[in-house]
């Protein structure tokens, strides 16, 4: 249950970040880059839809989403340091990525312990 909630929560956060990015609210609009946020959100969201009996499958969405978030986090950090992007949005993206990444690692440990 907890993981379902985590996946749902993360997907909501990523979706809203993506919509802000695409619409250009509080940050310059960038449609393809916003698309990346949406895809990461979708990866988490589909974890919620997985067959509840199949726990590894749910966790795998958290893990892969976390990995994608990790790279996006680095990219956002570079944006923040070198390109004077909007402080709030980009630092928010970095924090969200970091949290997703940590949860992803946790999900990975859980999957590995399951064999």
């Amino acid at each position, binding site marked *: 249950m907890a993981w379902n909630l985590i996946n749902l929560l993360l997907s909501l956060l990523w979706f809203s970040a993506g919509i802000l990015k695409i619409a250009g609210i509080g940050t310059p609009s960038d449609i*393809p880059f916003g698309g990346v946020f949406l895809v990461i959100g979708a990866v988490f969201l589909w974890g919620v839809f997985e067959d509840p009996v199949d726990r*590894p499958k749910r966790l795998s969405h958290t893990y892969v989403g976390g990995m994608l978030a990790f790279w996006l986090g*680095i*990219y956002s950090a570079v944006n923040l340091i070198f390109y004077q992007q909007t402080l709030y949005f980009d630092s928010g993206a970095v924090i969200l990525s970091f949290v997703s990444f940590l949860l992803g690692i946790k999900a990975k440990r859980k999957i590995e312990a399951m064999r």
Partner: protein
Amino acid sequence: MTIKVALMGNPNVGKTTLFNALTGSRQHVANWPGVTVEKKEGVALYKGFRIHVVDLPGIYTLGSKSLDEQIARDYLLFESPDVVVVIADAVNPEQGLYLLLQILELRSDVILVMNAVDELEREGSRLNRYELEKHLGVHVIPTVATKREGVSELLDTIIHVHQTRPAHQPVRFRYDQTVENTIEQLEKVILSKCENLNVPARWLAIRHIEGDEIVQWFCESLPPIEGNERKKLSLQIARSRYDHINVIIREAYSGKSAPKRLPLDEAIDHVLTHKYLGIPIFFTIMYLIFSFTFKVAQPLSDLIDISVSRLAEFAKASLGENWLAALFSDGIISGVGAVLVFTPNIFVMFLGLGILEESGYLPRAAFVIDRIMYALKLSGRSFMSLILGFGCNVPAILSTRAISDPRERLVTILVSPFVTCSARLPIYVLLAGLFFPQNAGSVLFLIYASSVFLAAVSSVLLNRVLFKGEPVPLIMELPRYRRPTVKGLLNYSWSKGRHFLQKAGTIILIASIAIWFLGSFPPGNVENSLAARIGKFLEPLFKPLNYDWRITTALIFGTAAKEIVVSTLSTFYSSEGLSFTESLRNSIDPSTALSLMFFVLAYIPCFATIAAIRSETQSDKWTLVSLIYGLVVAYLLAYLVKVVTGLWLGI
């Protein structure tokens, strides 16, 4: 004393890692002319021996006709290595041992390496090497190539096998009685018909049954075997080999349960090849790599850019106001520097691709995208190469080496110049911003979409006209996921990126000097320079497109590197007193500007790309085809765009 060693094995069993572990830093990558798949060669100096190691392409069988398999087999047959090392995956050894059994029929001085025993132990099972040795009659070395475990033992054994050959007789493997009868009959025919055989008659007989045409090369006019009979026999042969392997595995492994996938691998695969998420994730990963290529590398590129212009100023200052100073600063330093600026981008991109390749995602990406590429008569593998082209066409063309089918590889090389590279972006940005300020973004998108469309249409066309071939089968193994190592990544990006520095560097150097001379002589007004004369000479050709001599010259210079188009235009147009952009806007109309963008999109790629096409196809003919095809398409497209937009915009 030199010992020639051939490394053979299935793809993805750690052959190259073992090769690097064996040869250490002395390895050099040799590009063998005329072949599409790389063979790597290296030397290990060990206990007074020169061990010359050849890393052959990964294969599953000696019998099939694909190019990589032919290279490996021909090396085995005709280059006569002293010792053959067969590498099998310790976790899933079946297919590796199948290849070993085929090789053992040909020769006995073989060493079997069971790689990645650590992963096997992590699964909780163990491997008894002596049991394997007993059953197979060859030396068996368990290794962990990534940690160099077992490497020195392997080197010792190579020397030992070479000195005492044949150490022990390999176990002669018997098939079913019906198969044995046929083999025996064939053996008799072979021995009576063909003398001076340097391969075992039994091996020839088996290969003949399995339908291998290489047999003709050793012994002509063997009695043909009828198709159905041949199929029945070869299925029986394969079945007996696997039965034998299963018996060996049962004896030699303890605690090995039925093969199962790691739960983490299964979990990752579930998401990465997901029905709905698979393709979006693929595009997300590609997009992230592009963004990294441009943005993360940019600060470094800027640093190089500043250093280059400082250096140019310094050269000018210290050499004084003469033609030599101008040659150095404006010609060589600025020209070569323009390419060096892209080095960080190239290396970051290869770092990203290295992560994809080492982790095992790349085959999954090919798998996910395969259906779309199949419609274009390409496979998912060539899509990866084309995607690279958006960064730069040169690495895109170089990366086609991993495409094993020669026809598909050629088509991919020929269409890749249409994928619009980052060097063309400045031209689009300049013209779109100047002539379509309201819709610059849409114009840019139109160009990129047309680029993909041109590449796709050309691929279908080339396949139809030139090859009429069938689609290439996608039989591919998805390896276990591995965490990429820093060492491996650096190795990868250096070995790939080095090509860019070497080839582009030398060509750009020469081109920069040439363009500087053409633009500066005779001294005085640019209008009278050699460059201008060339442009004016060719101007009539571009009359229908409404390009004047300045654009023509810029386009010619742009063949060295597409960025030069912008700088040449700025030189020529700014000499009229007005600012460069204003005078450019006054000189040409929007429809000409749009057609120019399309011309730039399709016409001759830069020198480095042409050189890459030449060196990768090994053919002047195909290089020429690519050049002419690009020019024709560019001209027709530009004309079409001009006419259509001319009508549409009412100019």
